[in-house]
Every structure is written in C-alpha cells, then in structure tokens.
C-alpha cells in the first residue's frame, strides 16, 4: 500500500477526533444529567418507566 503513513495519520486523527468528541458529549451529558431531576429529562421517559 502506497503512502500508508499519511493514510494512517489522516484516518487515525479523523476517527480519533470524532471518537473523542463523541465520548466527551456522552460524559458532559452524564455529568449534567445527574444535576437534573429525572422527570425533567423528557427524552428518558419510555414505556418501561412507571408513570
């Protein structure tokens, strides 16, 4: 495979940045969610939640 180094850096950094950003989103969400009462996180109400 030609230019493997460049390809690995390009793909690696891109997927890495996307992955890290996704992780940071999930973590930010969890930290914040712990400070908000469950009944105000409206997307969390599913069928399994006892009303």
């Amino acid at each position, binding site marked *: 495979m030609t230019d493997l180094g*460049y390809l690995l850096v*390009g793909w690696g*950094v891109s997927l890495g940045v*996307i992955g890290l950003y*996704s992780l940071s*989103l*999930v973590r930010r969400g969890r930290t*914040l969610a712990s400070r*908000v009462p469950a009944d105000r996180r409206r997307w969390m109400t599913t069928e399994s939640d006892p009303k």
Partner: protein
Amino acid sequence: MTKLMTDDTIIDRQRGTGSRTTFWLGVVGLVGAIALVFLGFFVAPPDDFQKDAVRMIFIHVPMAILTYVAFSLTAIGSVAWLWKRSIWWDTVAHGAAEVGVMFSGLTLFTGSIWGRITWGTYWDWGDVRLVTTLILFLIMVGYLAVRSFDGDEAVNATRAAVIGLIGAANMPVVNRSVTWWSSRRTLHQKSSLVNGKIEGLTLFTLMFALVVFSIIMLWMLIHRFRISWLERQVSEGDLSEALTARRAEARAGMDRETEENK
C-alpha cells in the same frame, strides 16, 4: 432474567443524554465506522493515478459535505432565532456550529494530508475550496467564542446568530473572490463526483462513508442538543433553588420580627 437484563440496559443507556433512538443510532454509526475502515482500506481498489492515496477521499469528501450541511443548519437556526426567538432552533444552531467546526477542521486536516501526497504540498493558497473553507472555519470559531462569553445566554445567542448570518451571507462573496483570486493556479481536482470519474466499489464506499458520517453527525447533534437543554435546566434549577432559599430566609426574618414585636 431476560426481562431484567433489558431493563438494566435501558436504565444504563439512559444515564446521560442517551435514549433508545440515539443508542441504536450510535450502534449503527460505530459498526458503520468499523465497516468503513474495512471497506476503505481493503475492499475499495487503489486508483490508477493516485494509487492508495485515493483512500483519503472516504473521509475528506463526506467531512466537507457535512461541514456545509452543519453550517447551513447554523445559518437557518440563526435566522430562526433572530426572527422568531425560537430557542429550539437556537440550540440546533449552537450544536451544529460545534460539530461543523470540528468537521471543517477535519476537512482541512485530511485535505492538506491528501494534498501532501498528491500535490506535494500541505497547503495551496491558490485553491478556492481550501481557502473558502478556512475562512468559514475561522468565522465559525468566532461564533463559538461568542457563545462562550459570560453573561446572559439570550444575548450571546443573539450575538452568535448575527455572526452566523454574517458568515452565511458572505459565503458567496468569499467563494467568488477566492475563485477569481486564484483562477490560474488551482490544484484542486474538479469535483470528482460530478464528472463521474468515480465508479464501482470506490463510489460505493464513498456513498457508504457519507451515510455513516451522516448518522454519526445526527447522533452528535441529538446529544449536543440535549446537553444544551440540560444546561438550561441546570441554570434555571439553580436560579429557582436560590430564589426558594432567599424567600425562606426572608420569611424567617419576618417571623423573627413578628416574634420580637410581640
């Protein structure tokens, strides 16, 4: 037993900003990304001229397209905020700007690496799309900077929306000016999708990549939206808590006074 397991997973994936929809979106996005690495590196054939360097296309082109999708969302959201004071759209605009800045950064990064391989240079000042994207990237970095000002959130939303508007309104001018400025020295290939030079497995992989990254972007936007929503809840919650505390204090003070008056 099975029942318990599913309940557990539901609770687990609902700890933060996740929901059933985003959970499956995330799963599809993750599996898709892994499949994309496989397709991009082992299934898609090397190009006749570019050899394996062509594999950069599977990241670079979807990133570029989604950058413009994201910034269009920001522009629409900015207008909706200024016009209708729509908090929903303002939140979308903010999230799309954040995702868009990341994607445009990656577009520029993968583009310059690809340029290094095929043109022999990381950066080409004569290139329209490169320079246009750079200017847009810088304007949107300014947008995010404005968002992080301390002070009233609604005021910052207005400030940011005006920047989003300036950015969007000036895009044609930026594009025109760079086109003329660099008319004789561009290295960028003509959009290879349009003139049909890409076909077969390469085309399939490119389309696959576009779909995968779109799903990932959607996942990010939903999560980002919910984070903003939670942030608003937290600040409102803090405010109402503080108000309750103050009121309780005042009431206690009044009680004491009446006591003393007796």
